[in-house]
C-alpha cells in the first residue's frame, strides 16, 4: 500500500533539461514543486573530474551514465510480423539516467529546426502537390510555428551559452552563417568554436563546390560566459570527451551547470532522487491527474499528490508512462486509430570517410562534442524536392568530437577484424581519416510506433515498452541522395579514396550505435485525433498533464533535437504560468 505524501502544486517526472527548466520557472512562479528522478545526484565537482571522467571503458564502452537495463528496457522488432525481444545491451541509442539526464552526456550540438519543418505536410503539399508525400507516411504539421518558438529558441541558446554564427538576423543574411536558417532575433550569445584541421578541409571542399558551410552551433563554451540566470561557464579545452561523458570544466551546457542551481536554491523546489515513477494517477473520471506513484531506493511505494503533473523523462519513457497509466488511446497501426505511440521517428544517419596519405595528420583527438563544420544546403526543403521525390533531408557535417582510443579506429573495408593486419591498419589510418556525416531526417510512417509489450515486464512488473521500427522507403531514398552529395564533397577533400556507409541501405538494426534522437509517440498537433498533446504540450485528455521532450515531435527533422526540446519547454512553461494557472482548463479547445 502506497504511503500518501503531502500534496504539492507540481510534480515533475525526470530531472533532465526539461525537468530543470520547469523546476526553476515554476518554483519562481511561487508554486511548490517536487522533482522526482530515478537516478542519483551528481555534479561537476566532485563527480565529473578528470582523469577519472576520461575513463573510456567505464563511460563509453560500459555506458556509465546510461540507464540500468536490468531494471527497465524496451523490446524491439522491425515490423508487426516479428516477435519483439528485449534489449539487454545498449546499441542504436543511449538513454541517460541520473540528475541532468542525457543533458549531462550529450555532445552539445544545438540547432533550430527550419520554419518549413514545423509545417511539413502543408508545406510539401502546397509546393509539390497533394499526392507528393508517400501514402504510408503520417507526417504532419506541429501546431506551433517557427515564429512562435523563436523567442524560446533564443532564450534556450542564451541559457546554454551557444557559440555560433548567425546566418539570418531579423531577415538579413549574415556572411559565414547558415543562409537557410529562419530569422533570428539576435546573434548567438558566444562566438563559434575554433575550427579544426579536418573541418577546414571540409569547408574548403564545400566552398569550392558552391555550397554554404558554417560553424556548428555549440554548447561547448568558446569563452567565459555568464548566462541569464547568473550561471558562470568556462571555455572548452577541446579534450574530446563530451558524448557519453560529463564535462569536468563547467564548459558544456548541462542542467547542473546552467539551470539546476537556481532551482535548488529556491525553497519552493524539492529534488528527490532514487524515486522511480511507475504511474500517473487519475481521478475516477480519468480526466484529471491527481499525482504520481513512485518507488524509492528501498522499494517503498509512495503516492505524491499534485495539482499539475509534468512528464520530463526521456521521450521513450514519457510515452511508456502514458501507456501504462492508461492516458489517451493507444495507437493501432492496423486501423490507424489511436494516438499514444503513434509517429515514432528516429534519425537517418550515413557517412562518407575520406582516407588520406599518412603525411596528412588530422589530430582529431583535439576535439569537442560540437566542434564541427556544417552545411544545410541539403536539409529540409532547402533544395528542390521535385526531382528527387522524397520528403526531408539532412545536414552534412565534418565533426571532430574526439578520436578516443578504444572506440575510434577507422580502417578501410577489407581490413582483417583482428590480429596483426588489423593493428597495422589502425596505426596507419588512425590519424588520417576524416568522416563526412549526414544527419538525415526521419519521416513518420504508419508502421513505426511504440506500444506495450505483451510478453516482457520490467523490474516493477510493468509491461515493457515495445518499439516497432524500420526505415521508411522515403528515408532510404532521401539518405541515398544526401549521401551522394556528401560523397561529392568528400571526394573534393584531397584524400586518396573514400568509403560510404548508409544505415538505411539495409534494415534498421538496433544493435549498432547510430544516435540518441528518438522522437514521437506523444506528438503535438492541432487535432486531438492525430496528436496526444496540444500546441502547449498539454494532454488533450488530461488537462493538468503536460508532456515534454522529443516525444512530442510529429516527425524528426534533419537536426539534433535538444535545441527544439529546450525551446518547447520554455514555450510550454510560459503557457502554464500565464494561461493555465489562472483557468486550469484546456488551453486549446478540441
Amino acid at each position, binding site marked *: 500500500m502506497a504511503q500518501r505524501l503531502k500534496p504539492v502544486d507540481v510534480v515533475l517526472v525526470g530531472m533532465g533539461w526539461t525537468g530543470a527548466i520547469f523546476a526553476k520557472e515554476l518554483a519562481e512562479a511561487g508554486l511548490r514543486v517536487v522533482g522526482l528522478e530515478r537516478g542519483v545526484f551528481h*555534479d561537476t*565537482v566532485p563527480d565529473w573530474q*578528470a582523469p577519472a571522467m576520461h575513463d573510456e571503458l567505464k563511460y563509453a564502452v560500459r555506458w556509465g551514465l546510461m540507464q540500468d537495463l536490468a531494471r527497465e528496457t524496451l523490446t524491439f522488432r522491425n515490423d508487426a510480423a516479428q516477435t519483439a525481444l528485449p534489449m539487454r545491451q545498449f546499441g542504436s541509442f543511449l538513454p541517460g539516467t541520473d540528475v541532468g539526464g542525457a543533458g549531462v552526456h550529450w555532445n552539445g550540438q544545438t540547432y533550430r529546426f527550419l520554419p518549413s519543418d514545423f509545417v511539413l505536410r502543408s508545406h510539401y503539399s502546397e509546393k509539390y502537390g497533394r499526392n507528393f508525400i508517400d501514402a504510408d507516411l503520417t507526417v504532419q504539421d506541429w501546431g506551433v510555428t517557427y515564429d512562435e518558438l523563436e523567442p524560446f529558441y533564443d532564450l534556450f541558446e542564451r541559457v546554454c551559452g551557444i557559440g555560433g554564427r548567425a546566418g539570418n538576423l531579423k531577415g538579413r543574411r549574415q556572411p*559565414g552563417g547558415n543562409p537557410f536558417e529562419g530569422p533570428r532575433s539576435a546573434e548567438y550569445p558566444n*562566438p563559434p568554436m575554433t575550427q579544426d584541421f579536418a573541418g577546414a578541409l571540409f*569547408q574548403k571542399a564545400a566552398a569550392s563546390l558552391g555550397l554554404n*558551410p558554417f560553424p556548428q552551433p555549440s554548447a561547448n563554451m568558446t569563452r567565459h560566459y555568464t548566462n541569464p540566470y547568473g550561471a558562470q561557464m*568556462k571555455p572548452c*579545452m577541446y579534450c574530446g570527451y563530451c558524448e557519453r561523458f560529463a564535462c569536468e570544466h563547467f564548459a558544456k551546457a548541462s542542467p547542473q551547470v546552467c539551470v539546476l542551481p537556481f532551482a535548488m536554491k529556491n525553497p519552493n523546489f524539492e529534488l528527490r532522487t532514487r524515486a522511480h515513477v511507475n504511474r500517473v494517477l487519475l481521478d475516477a473520471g480519468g480526466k484529471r491527474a491527481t499525482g504520481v506513484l513512485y518507488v524509492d531506493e528501498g522499494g517503498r511505494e509512495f503516492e505524491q499528490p499534485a495539482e499539475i503533473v509534468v512528464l520530463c523523462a526521456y521521450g521513450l519513457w514519457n510515452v511508456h508512462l502514458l501507456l501504462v497509466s492508461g492516458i489517451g488511446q493507444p495507437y493501432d497501426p492496423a486501423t490507424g486509430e489511436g494516438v499514444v505511440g503513434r509517429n515514432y521517428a528516429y534519425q537517418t544517419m550515413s557517412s562518407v570517410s575520406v582516407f588520406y596519405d599518412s603525411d596528412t595528420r588530422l589530430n582529431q583527438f583535439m576535439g569537442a562534442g560540437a566542434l564541427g563544420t556544417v552545411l544545410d544546403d541539403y536539409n529540409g526543403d532547402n533544395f528542390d524536392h521535385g526531382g528527387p521525390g522524397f520528403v526531408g533531408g539532412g545536414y552534412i557535417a565534418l565533426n571532430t568530437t574526439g578520436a578516443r582510443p578504444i572506440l575510434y579506429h577507422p580502417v578501410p573495408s577489407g581490413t582483417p577484424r583482428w590480429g596483426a593486419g588489423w593493428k597495422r591498419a589502425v596505426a596507419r589510418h588512425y590519424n588520417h581519416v576524416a568522416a563526412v556525416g549526414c544527419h538525415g531526417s526521419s519521416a513518420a510512417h504508419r508502421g513505426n510506433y511504440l506500444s506495450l509489450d505483451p510478453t516482457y515486464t520490467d523490474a516493477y512488473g510493468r509491461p515493457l515498452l515495445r518499439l516497432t521500427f524500420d526505415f521508411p522507403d522515403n528515408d532510404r531514398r532521401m539518405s541515398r541522395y544526401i549521401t551522394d552529395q556528401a560523397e561529392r564533397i568528400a571526394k573534393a577533400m584531397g584524400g586518396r579514396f573514400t568509403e560510404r556507409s548508409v544505415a538505411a541501405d539495409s534494415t534498421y538494426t538496433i544493435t549498432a550505435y547510430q544516435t540518441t534522437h528518438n522522437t514521437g509517440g506523444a506528438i503535438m498537433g492541432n487535432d486531438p485525433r492525430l496528436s496526444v498533446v496540444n500546441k502547449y504540450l498539454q494532454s488533450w485528455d488530461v488537462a493538468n498533464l503536460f508532456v515534454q521532450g522529443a516525444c512530442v515531435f510529429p516527425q524528426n527533422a534533419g537536426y539534433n533535437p535538444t535545441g527544439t526540446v529546450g525551446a518547447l519547454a520554455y514555450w510550454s512553461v510560459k503557457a502554464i504560468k500565464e494561461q493555465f494557472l489562472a483557468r486550469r482548463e484546456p488551453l486549446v479547445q478540441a
Partner: protein
Amino acid sequence: MNPHRGGSRDRALLALAVVAVAGAVVLAAMVREGVAAGATDPPTPSDRRTTPAVAPAAAVAPMEDRTTAFVAFEGDPRAGQRVVMGAGRAGVGGACFPCHGVQGEGDSGGAFPRLAGQPAFYLYKQLTNYADGTRPNAIMSPIAVQMTQQERRDAAAYYSAARAAFRAPPADAPNRLQLGAGIAAVGSRTSGVQACTGCHGPGGSGVPPDVPYLAGQSVAYLELQLRLWHEARRTNDPLGVMADVARRLTPEERASVARYFAALAPPQR
C-alpha cells in the same frame, strides 16, 4: 642547515649579478633595434614530419582557411645546450644554467622553476611570451627578447630532454596537504573550481605539448604563479582558464595546492 638551500641562494645571487649586466645589454639592444617586444622570425613553413603544435586559439578566425594554420615545432637539444651555457644571441648574460641549473633542476628559492623534462613546446611558448609581454618578468623578458625563435626552440628542447634529481621539500602539515590534494584531484565545490589534474594530468605530471607538469615544482614558484594569474600579471593562457581558477581559489586553497604539488615527485619521462 640544509646545504641544498644554501647552494641555491648562492646561485641565485650569482644569477642576479649576471642578469643585472645582461639587462643593461638587452636594454641597449632593444633601443638600438627599436624593438618593444617580440623579436620574431618569420613563421616556419609547415613541416608535417613533426608533430604539429596547437595553434593559439584566438589567433585565427574560425571560418578562415585553417588548412595550413598548423605550425611545426622542432628544436635541437645540442644547439640548445650552447644557448643554455651562454653562447646564444643573448650572450653570457642570457645563459640559463646559472639560475635553472645545468640539468634544469631549478632553485627552491622560488624565482627559478625546475625545467627538466617540461614539454618542449610549453617551454618554447613561455620564452615567446616572456618576449611578447603576456608573461612579463624582469629577468626573463629581457633575455627572451634577445633570443631568436630557433634559440628558444633549441633551449626548450635541451631542458625538455634534461633529467634532474628531485629532493622532496620538508613535510608539510597533513591537513594542509589533504586540502591541496582534494583541490588537485576533484576541485573545489565552494569555489567553483575544477580539478587541476584535468589539464595538468594525473598527479600533476603534465600533458605535452602545452600543459606543464606541476609535481615537484617549488612551493614558492607555484604560489607566485598562482598570485600572478590572480592579479592578472600573467596572462599567457589563451583561454583565461588559469586566471579564472586563481581568482576563485581562496588564499588558503592556493597555498595548500602549491604545497601538495611541491611534495610530489616530478614525472620521469
